[in-house]
């Protein structure tokens, strides 16, 4: 079965990519001329703390020993330090915050629902709005609707997310008082509150991303509608609506879906800006906080987590790509 082979070959690929990503991250953060112990020691950094951090990180080991520990932590878990003060870190161990006395994996997992709520909701919104807008612009090319949609889109592409977010807060939060100005409400506690708190971040993120998707969808669809096969389909007597939906859009969406997978994967690793603007304690906020408190373990852990997500997203996109484009499947 071709699809099974495609998935198989991609799974081998993901292991390699993950290994490379881990190695690159390790090299950047532990081998480049910086001072990992210093950066992991926290504030205030007393000499005892520094010595402890050095010991925990195994910085007296040669570099390959350090990398092995690092890698082992992710796959099988590791132990920081030796003797009575040793700290066990279960797999997948993305590090251990000595300041917070918590494994980084645990920190990430407690924050993940926040980030995921923002990312998934916004992604659904921007995909629908972007594809619909782009398709409409392509169909009514050079007409008023196209100009209007593309004007909004170029504004969306140019506006930074935080600016849009702050304007939304100003309008719907402060001026109108309809929606909360920030914070997060877990879905389990209060589904309505969850929704109202997320509505503004979703809108802000969706607005700027939908603009990108609308532009991409428009240019892809225009390209597809100029292809030879569209003429064949028209010559069959299909209505223009079916020509566009079943054939033009079906082909135009192939690259759009690819981009979507990657964007969503990247955003799940931390919606840094939205979390800051809307005061939400997601993974992005964790990263910013730990940079402020000089907690390198968390910084590296979050970075690696984000990299893992994107590597996995890449593979998923590849597989989906093979499913929606028979030409790719054939090459697997």
């Amino acid at each position, binding site marked *: 079965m071709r699809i099974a082979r495609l998935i198989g070959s991609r799974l081998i690929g993901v292991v390699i990519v993950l290994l490379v990503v881990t190695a690159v991250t390790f090299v950047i953060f532990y081998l480049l001329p910086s001072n990992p112990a210093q950066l992991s020691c926290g504030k205030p950094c007393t000499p005892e703390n520094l010595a402890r951090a050095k010991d925990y990180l195994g910085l007296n080991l040669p570099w390959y020993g350090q990398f092995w520990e690092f890698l082992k932590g992710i796959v099988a878990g590791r132990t920081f330090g030796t003797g009575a003060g040793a700290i066990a870190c279960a797999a997948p161990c993305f590090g251990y915050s000595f300041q917070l006395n918590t494994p980084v994996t645990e920190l990430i997992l407690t924050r993940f629902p926040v980030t995921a709520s923002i990312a998934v909701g916004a992604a659904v919104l921007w995909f629908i709005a972007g594809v619909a807008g782009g398709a409409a612009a392509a169909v009514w090319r050079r007409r008023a609707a196209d100009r209007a949609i593309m004007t909004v889109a170029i504004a969306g592409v140019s506006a930074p997310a935080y600016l849009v977010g702050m304007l939304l807060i100003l309008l719907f939060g402060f001026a109108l008082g309809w929606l909360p100005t920030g914070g997060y409400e877990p879905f389990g506690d209060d589904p309505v509150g969850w929704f109202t708190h997320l509505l503004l971040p979703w809108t802000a993120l969706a607005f700027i991303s939908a603009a990108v998707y609308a532009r991409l969808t428009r240019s892809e669809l225009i390209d597809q509608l100029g292809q030879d096969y569209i003429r064949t389909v028209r010559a*069959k007597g299909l209505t223009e609506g079916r020509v566009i939906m079943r054939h033009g859009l079906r082909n135009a969406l192939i690259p759009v879906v690819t981009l979507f997978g990657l964007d969503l994967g990247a955003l799940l690793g931390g919606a840094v800006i939205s979390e800051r603007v809307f005061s939400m304690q997601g993974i992005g906020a964790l990263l910013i906080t730990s940079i402020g408190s000089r907690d390198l373990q968390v910084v590296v852990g979050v970075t690696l987590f984000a990299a893992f997500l994107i590597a996995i997203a890449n593979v998923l996109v590849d597989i989906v790509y093979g499913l929606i484009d028979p030409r790719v499947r054939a090459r697997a």
Partner: protein
Amino acid sequence: MSPTSPAPVLSVRDLSVSFSAGDAAGTAEAGRVVDSVGFDLAPGRVLAVVGESGSGKSVTAMSVLGLLPDSATVTGSVRLEGRELIGAPAAELRAVRGGRIGTVFQEPMSAFDPVYTIGQQIAEAIRVHRPGVRGRALRDRVHELLRSVGLPEAHRIAASHPHELSGGQLQRSMIAMAISCDPVAIIADEPTTALDVTVQAGILDLLRALRDERGTAILLITHDMGVVADLADDVLVMRRGEALESGPVADVFDRPRSDYTRGLLAAVPTLTELSETDAPAGQQPVQKTPAAPVSAPVPAPAPAAEPEPEPTVVLDGASVVFRRRGAAVHAVSEVGFTIGRGEVVGLVGESGSGKSTIGRALVGLVPISAGRATVGGVELGRAGRRERRRVRSRIGYVFQDPASSLNPRNTVGTSIAEPLALHTGDSPAARAARARELLEQVQLPPEFADRYPHELSGGQRQRVAIARALALEPELLIADEPTSALDVSVQASVLELLERLQARHGFACLFISHDLAVVRRLADRVVVLQAGRVVEQGPAAEVLAAPAQPYTRRLLAAAPVADPAAQALRRAQWRELEAVAE
């Protein structure tokens, strides 16, 4: 148009099409592209609309279906079975498209939607016009249609995606789709142009069967006089949007009324004349290699039989193997032939036969994986970097596609002087002077040196490419399909130029072409390739007049000639050969 034909199904009167200059680009092309054209298409007859590029023949066909872009303005009258189509409501036009008129397009590879299977696409065409047909009945209908167009493996074809099928299979599927709703007429827009001759002959036969068995009227759009002679009952010759003349095919071919038609017919290189005349006189004698069985490697001509100077090119058991995703693909297998000094060797074969690969291997663009290839005494496999460069400086290369053979960012003069810049120490002024001189040799004004390629026509660009190839006075000229992208009248003049330059400079020439008639015109000797192997070689006169191998015979018989009577004979011959082959 012929008075004996029954009431026409499609009747076109005073059809004019013009494009508004609404698009920012293309102002030069705005204006009227079809001017007061009229014709009648009768059931059971084939009307060929013939013309060169820019004649408006495709636009005419598409305007019948209302498939022109919005920027087109169509006036006049198009009546299908008595109903007016111009200005008809969209729903009515849609019922005609696919329902009453089926369409077959030029490029089968790009005319199908890549993401759906052939079966899905044919089923869609049926469902649009017959919503009641679904499920099992629909599937059976699709398979039946595919079998009826000569695709016995209907199940496999229906389940395949377009990229998994060959051009011939796709074009047959396209015809199956066109006839899926039993149309009264089919518009076939250059249906065989992108196909090999043997495949083309099959498709033309299929169209003929539709006409004869179903009584379908066929509007055939083509530039190829051979195709017209083969299939058409009536002809309409178009030039620059105007209908020049029309009538039954025999009349137009025998007694063309306009000079243009006469010129067009005269420009078509012919194959038949060869059987009457002898080999061109004044050429050096060439010995014919005994033809080997198709499967066995062809032994190279014995070097001992070469008493005088070594030939310019010697290929001996040469193979080229590509690796595609781990699998070895034998593009060229154990090929052996020579090109003597000043000799023109025609290399013929269908697409995928490896003929272009041989040309590329001779300049070292593709490595030879086994065997021996010598150019000008240098063995390519053993040559070092420097020596290979020297070999390249002694070879001129002319490629097929005039649209992309010149760097669009460089002036014509710069392009022509490129080999000089690479291989000589000439000053820029000397190079410019030489470029002008070369332009004159290819019969272009020297002022063209300052122009850019997009300002030139295809034929002019091809002349520039020839000038560039001759810049270093090469020992060998490799011409890879140099005229196949050109209109016939232009093709004729480019061939004439090549002939004259060869006579003047005396370079050896490897002339690669799929078109036997073109090869026949230039080549002293012919090498026939099939699937990477040499099937037959020998003097052009012998091979093309009395081929020894069945493959060559089929190739020859499949190539249509621009003479209806002669073509009917060839067709019978081809059918016989096909029957034997199967």
